[in-house]
């Protein structure tokens, strides 16, 4: 990839391409606006939303603080209920464990419930390399898999495709994977859903091995919980003889009762429903009801490194609702693929660089994929202060250096000196105003960063001069303006915390 000068153009470059795609932008705008209005209505039905949000945040924080204890308790509970617990330090180990478990059954295909964790570790590809076919059964995942595409949204992985595009994929590709799409398939959502039902049914009915993730695991009881809509989850969780669940270690909650909070906040935040159509809760194995063998693979894969960061660890509270994606102005325009991760949007911008580290170009660029407007924080049902973590990660990326960041740091240092020396600043501003016609619209020398940004136009005269001329005579010499001033240029004064200050209102709507 070209233009890597500052170590952060990966997202800008990908986003620039996406922004130029009119269909993609229209699909995203339509979908995100629909869901955000519905969410606001669903949330408004509960007077105690802010209390539920705070409780959810605290349950997660408490669990993370004592994560070792709750994981050990979970292991005991699941084992006592007839399950087998495995621990995977990274993606490679998790994939190896799952592949061996599938091989031990003698089967060469598995049906899958949509799961972020298995996408994160690239399980389908790893299984394929071992000669095992993994069939995605969520409608959107099916669209992505048949289209040889990548997911672009946590909840609705094919959000970037409209109905016409989906019809084409079904018509052209279903036959190669199993039952072909019906003749003359139209693009009405009802017909498309029916085509998926027929195509997948034969896979469900013969499946011997199911693979899932989980939304929650209860330490006290050993219960796993999967929220879904279509019934493909129920199919995968109850019809096969063997069930393998791959779950991030941060998904544990201490008690059964804790679920009452998330059962209220997750569906309203994600699909904007009072409740999603189906939720399955199982505890180990249940005699003749459901799989007779259950394996739980507990996945670290960067989570403990995230936990070690005192600001960044709050990202582990995430319950993957995707409300932050739907309100994000950057996501709405750039789409999910630009984030270069299975976790797109604001949460992805803080999760991916922490799970994977900030060594790569894309991960170092993600903390900058935001305008810090704070909408993500407002809708987050577990109150993750995403802007706070973004700023924190920017600092980390800057500290780790690289050519561009040395430049940035040098510039900041120089700026700091100038702001500390008012006379130098005044002289500089005057000189800049006088020469403004000569300024280029783009800053040379800083490579990719400046290529995607126009320099702001300088005003004809410095604010200090304007102030002296227009206002200063009205007041005592040296008096600070009351209020913030109509010019809005008092950016160096106190109290301008930007979106990262602590006084944001948690309207929840």
């Amino acid at each position: 990839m070209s233009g890597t000068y500052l170590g952060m153009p990966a997202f800008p470059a990908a986003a620039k391409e996406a922004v130029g795609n009119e269909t993609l932008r229209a699909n995203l705008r339509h979908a995100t606006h629909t869901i955000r209005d519905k969410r606001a209505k669903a949330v408004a039905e509960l007077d105690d939303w802010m209390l539920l949000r705070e409780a959810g945040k605290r349950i997660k924080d408490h669990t993370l603080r004592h994560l070792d204890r709750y994981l050990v308790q979970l292991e005991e509970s699941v084992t006592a209920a007839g399950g087998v617990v495995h621990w995977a330090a990274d993606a490679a180990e998790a994939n190896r464990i799952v592949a061996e478990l599938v091989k031990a059954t003698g089967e060469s295909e598995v049906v899958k419930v949509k799961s972020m964790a298995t996408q994160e570790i690239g399980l389908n590809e790893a299984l394929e390399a071992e000669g095992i076919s993994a069939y995605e059964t969520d409608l959107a995942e099916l669209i992505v898999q048949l289209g040889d595409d990548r997911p672009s949204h946590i909840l609705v992985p094919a959000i970037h495709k409209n109905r016409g595009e989906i019809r084409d994929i079904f018509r052209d590709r279903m036959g190669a994977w199993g039952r072909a799409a019906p003749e003359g398939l139209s693009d009405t959502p009802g017909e498309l859903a029916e085509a998926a039902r027929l195509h997948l049914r034969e896979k469900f009915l013969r499946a011997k091995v199911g693979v899932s993730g989980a939304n929650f695991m209860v330490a006290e009881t050993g219960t796993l919980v999967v929220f879904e809509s279509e019934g493909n989850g129920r199919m995968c969780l109850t019809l096969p003889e063997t069930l393998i669940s791959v779950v991030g270690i941060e998904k544990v909650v201490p008690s059964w009762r804790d679920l009452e909070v998330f059962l209220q906040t997750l569906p309203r935040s994600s699909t904007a429903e009072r409740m999603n159509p189906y939720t399955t809760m199982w505890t180990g194995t249940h005699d003749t009801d459901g799989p007779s063998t259950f394996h739980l693979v507990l996945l670290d894969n960067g989570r403990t490194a995230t936990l070690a960061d005192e600001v960044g660890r709050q990202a582990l509270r995430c319950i993957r609702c995707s409300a932050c994606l739907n309100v994000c102005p950057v996501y709405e325009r750039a789409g999910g693929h630009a984030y270069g991760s299975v976790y797109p949007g604001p949460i992805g911008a803080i999760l991916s660089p922490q799970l994977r580290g900030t060594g790569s170009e894309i991960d170092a660029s993600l903390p900058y994929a935001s305008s810090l407007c704070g909408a993500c924080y407002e809708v987050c049902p577990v109150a993750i202060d995403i802007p706070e973590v973004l700023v924190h990660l920017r600092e980390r990326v800057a500290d780790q250096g690289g050519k561009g960041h040395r430049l940035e740091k040098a510039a900041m240092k120089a700026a700091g000196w100038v702001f500390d020396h008012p006379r130098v600043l005044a002289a500089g501003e005057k000189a800049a105003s006088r020469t403004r016609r000569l300024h280029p619209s783009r800053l040379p020398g800083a490579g990719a960063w400046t290529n995607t940004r126009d320099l702001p136009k300088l005003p004809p005269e410095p604010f200090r001069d304007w102030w002296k001329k227009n206002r200063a005579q009205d007041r005592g010499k040296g008096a600070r303006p009351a209020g913030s001033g109509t010019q809005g240029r008092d950016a160096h004064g106190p109290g301008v915390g930007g979106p990262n200050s602590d006084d944001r209102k948690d309207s929840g709507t």
Partner: protein
Amino acid sequence: MNTGSGSRERILARIRTAVADAPDAPEVVRDYLDTHTPEDRVVELLAENLADYRAIVHRAGTEELPGLIGRLLAERGARTVLVPPLLPPSWLSATPAEITRVEDDVDATARELDAVDSVVTGCALAVAETGTLVLDAAPDQGRRRITLVPDHHICVVRTADQVVGSVPQAMPRLDPTRPLTWISGPSATSDIELDRVEGVHGPRTLEVILLAE
């Protein structure tokens, strides 16, 4: 038998190091509401919310129940109906003889279940605020698969003692050692342009009978 025990110790050690200096997390406060719904409104609200998510809601007294079930099966054109092990016998007492009852056989394959038209069950409880039925695989409901594979599910809710207002009221009444299925309307998807479309893999028709005894 656990595998990857080296990783187990490694992960636990990493966690302990990661949080060693972390301050203790503030206590969990449960000052959210136990319910949002007055007691005398719960059955009405349940009916509204079920219907809002396209479940078909019926009401019956004990006397009318068998007739209603028989009529719904006949109108559906069902030729076969799955029966959980201990469904109250009276419930199917007025079902037309030509509709064959199918017991849930442990050895029945998913494909055999797929050939059955309808299923009739009770439930563990229903949650009014969310329009949810919770099944816990008790003998009047049967194994999870029998309410999943057939395309038509009739579920009977006893309004006198099975309807709670809210999720927090439901939790203490449920037993997590049982397999639980929370059902809110028929199977649906929002995966195409975020429009809710009913009818994917689960039963595409969900009929709920509110039984006032």
